[in-house]
């Protein structure tokens, strides 16, 4: 040991570093341009070539889409007379409402906004740092929110059970926001404020008991308040546009991960039946085009369900897309699982964690973290793939766009709606990918 340290100090002789090069001014726009775009002959040439190409490509598009475009007109003929070489955005603007809401009645569209607004409000607290129990909020959201949204979107006579779950969902949301306010002012949730009064009765379970009691109270209140409110019935046939696209992809995006995790775990299971079932599902679904799965869901799925279960087209499509997405997700998750070293299983086992605890506390959090880019990529492609449902006659945004071109006023207006849709999709998908990058950065800095 001592010999080594003396050897080390001998090596630490002073060796002068070479002089630094003179400082090149690289501040400001001019400096940046000079450094990155025009540094050297070839770099300059490349820059010029690329910009020329860009100009040649973008100029005609801009001419068409902006400079010569017509923004207001009564019909396509009017557009043509004003500016034959320009885009006729008037048609898209006229139909914009339908692109978003499909054929949902104009006067009731506030209900769609309300439904999605509630969804966003529900998700917002998940971003708060001081709120504990996010998993519970998330799971409650996934379970209850669809009922709340469906109640608002559909309207009509929904039956007692649906009304109850609707009120339960609203109650949860109200309690959530009371908790948010209390946590930030008093540092406690509402159920924690009351649980000491319940302790004599319920003992250790007083926290759960007080939560259930408060929920029951608010639910009853909701049941009472909304009992007279009647919403006009809007059949699923009238749902469409971006609204429908978001419903289908929202469902399949939230379900893809749980289904994928279950299939991936099944595939690694030691139980043969479970393993075969998982492998068969994954391989079968992955080797068939999505369109076929969609068609089969509409034509064949009714054969599998008893007649009494009257599934509508939308439910069939959602089930099909969920299974499809789940099978793909299973392979992504499996990749993540394989990246976890065996030592993690050993350590979890030697602490005494069981299979599910090991998976959900140790393995999956790491596996999913490693797979965030892949998972978001499949979410994005799933979101885009849902446009295929127009093929089986659901009036999603794609079919609405094509309907513009057969409207007698806007006959032949093909390109503009597609460009408009592309922009919409770009906004959504770019948003998702940005979010995933932020998430990744956040998770990476925390380790």
């Amino acid at each position: 040991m001592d010999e080594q340290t003396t050897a080390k100090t001998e090596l630490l002789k002073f060796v002068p570093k070479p002089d630094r090069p003179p400082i090149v001014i690289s501040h400001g726009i001019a400096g940046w341009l000079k450094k990155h775009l025009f540094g050297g002959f070839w770099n300059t040439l490349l820059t010029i070539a690329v910009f020329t190409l860009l100009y040649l490509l973008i100029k005609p598009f801009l001419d068409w889409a902006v400079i010569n475009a017509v923004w207001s007109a009564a019909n396509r003929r009017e557009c043509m007379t004003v500016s034959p070489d320009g885009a006729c955005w008037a048609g898209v603007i006229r139909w914009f409402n339908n692109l978003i809401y499909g054929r949902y009645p104009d006067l009731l569209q506030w209900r769609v906004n309300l439904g999605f607004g509630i969804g966003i409000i529900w998700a917002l607290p998940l971003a708060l740092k001081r709120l504990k129990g996010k998993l519970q909020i998330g799971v409650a959201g996934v379970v209850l929110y669809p009922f709340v949204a469906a109640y608002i979107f559909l309207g009509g006579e929904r039956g007692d059970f649906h009304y109850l779950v609707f009120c339960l969902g609203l109650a949860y949301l109200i309690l959530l926001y009371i908790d948010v306010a209390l946590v930030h002012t008093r540092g406690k949730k509402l159920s924690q404020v009351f649980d000491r009064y319940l302790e004599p009765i319920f003992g250790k379970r007083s926290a759960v008991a007080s939560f259930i009691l408060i929920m029951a109270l608010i639910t009853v209140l909701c049941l009472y308040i909304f009992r007279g409110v009647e919403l006009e019935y809007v059949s699923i046939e009238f749902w469409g546009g971006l609204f429908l696209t978001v419903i289908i992809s929202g469902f399949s995006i939230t379900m893809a991960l749980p289904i994928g995790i279950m299939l991936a775990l099944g595939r690694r299971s030691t139980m043969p039946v479970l393993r075969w079932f998982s492998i068969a599902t994954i391989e079968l679904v992955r080797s068939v085009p999505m369109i076929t799965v969609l068609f089969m869901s509409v034509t064949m799925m009714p054969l599998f369900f008893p007649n009494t279960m009257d599934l509508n087209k939308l439910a069939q499509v959602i089930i099909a897309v969920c299974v499809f997405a789940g099978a793909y997700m299973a392979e992504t998750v499996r990749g993540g699982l394989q990246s976890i070293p065996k030592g993690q299983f050993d350590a979890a086992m030697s602490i005494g964690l069981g299979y599910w605890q090991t998976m959900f506390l140790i393995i999956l959090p790491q596996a999913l973290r490693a797979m965030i880019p892949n998972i978001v990529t499949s979410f994005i492609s799933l979101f885009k793939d849902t446009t295929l449902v127009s093929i089986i006659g659901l009036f999603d945004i794609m079919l609405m766009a094509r309907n513009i071109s057969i409207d007698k006023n806007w006959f032949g207006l093909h390109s503009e709606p597609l460009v408009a849709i592309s922009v919409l999709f770009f906004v959504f998908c770019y948003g998702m990918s940005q979010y995933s990058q932020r998430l990744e950065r956040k998770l990476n800095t925390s380790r």
Partner: protein
Amino acid sequence: MTIDMTETNNAEKAIPAVSAVEISGLNKWFDEFHVLKDIELSVSEKEIIVICGPSGSGKSTFIRCINHLETYQEGTISIFGQPLDNPKTAQGIIRDNVGMLFQSFNLFPHLTIIKNCTLGPIWLRRIPEAKAIEQSMALLDRVGIADLAEKFPGQISGGQQQRVAIARSLAMEPRIMLFDEPTSALDPEMIKEVLDVMVDLAESGMTMMCVTHEMQFAHEVADRVIFMTDGEIVEMGPPEQVLKNPKWDRTQQFLQHVLSHKS
């Protein structure tokens, strides 16, 4: 191999009615390959056992069998008189009695140090979070790294990680600790800090089975040293006997090799 040495060596220690670990007729095969051959061993409570032997002799496999991380084809292992035959109950017996340390630490990288430690107590022993944190902080303090509680495993040194791993095991309040080469992935300066904690553990009366090539540690702390070759226990006895006057040539060669490597 007879186990009478226990008595001669630990004359001053009270010998409990049941031994902490009782292994008889243990045989294990990896397919055709016979890794463990007729292992017989009885470890009494508070005893410190050091296991050494050349690479590939089956030390890891042996110690992993005791922790139920490996299955075996023949023989029985009992922990405080409870056999691990039934896989359903084995997990519970292990959880309540045995902790294990690994060469590669195996901390959970996505959790902070304190969360690594409180995970088991909260989820398995159902201890309220505040109390679990308090207990784990005391353990982290004992291994000398309470100030790192909020860091992630990737942010601390190997020696510190291994000490966290010790604290994490202790949080489950085991009566037996197994070590599989806990210091061999560490730099020399860090080996000492981990060994110090292990010596402290031994002095506190923990039953320990330790695969290690730290002969110094074996000399000072071990009650018995076991030498394994090719899946067999070829030598077993007090450290002076096995390390100074081994019966087998193979042991002698190995010890010379290890000792020359160390100094």
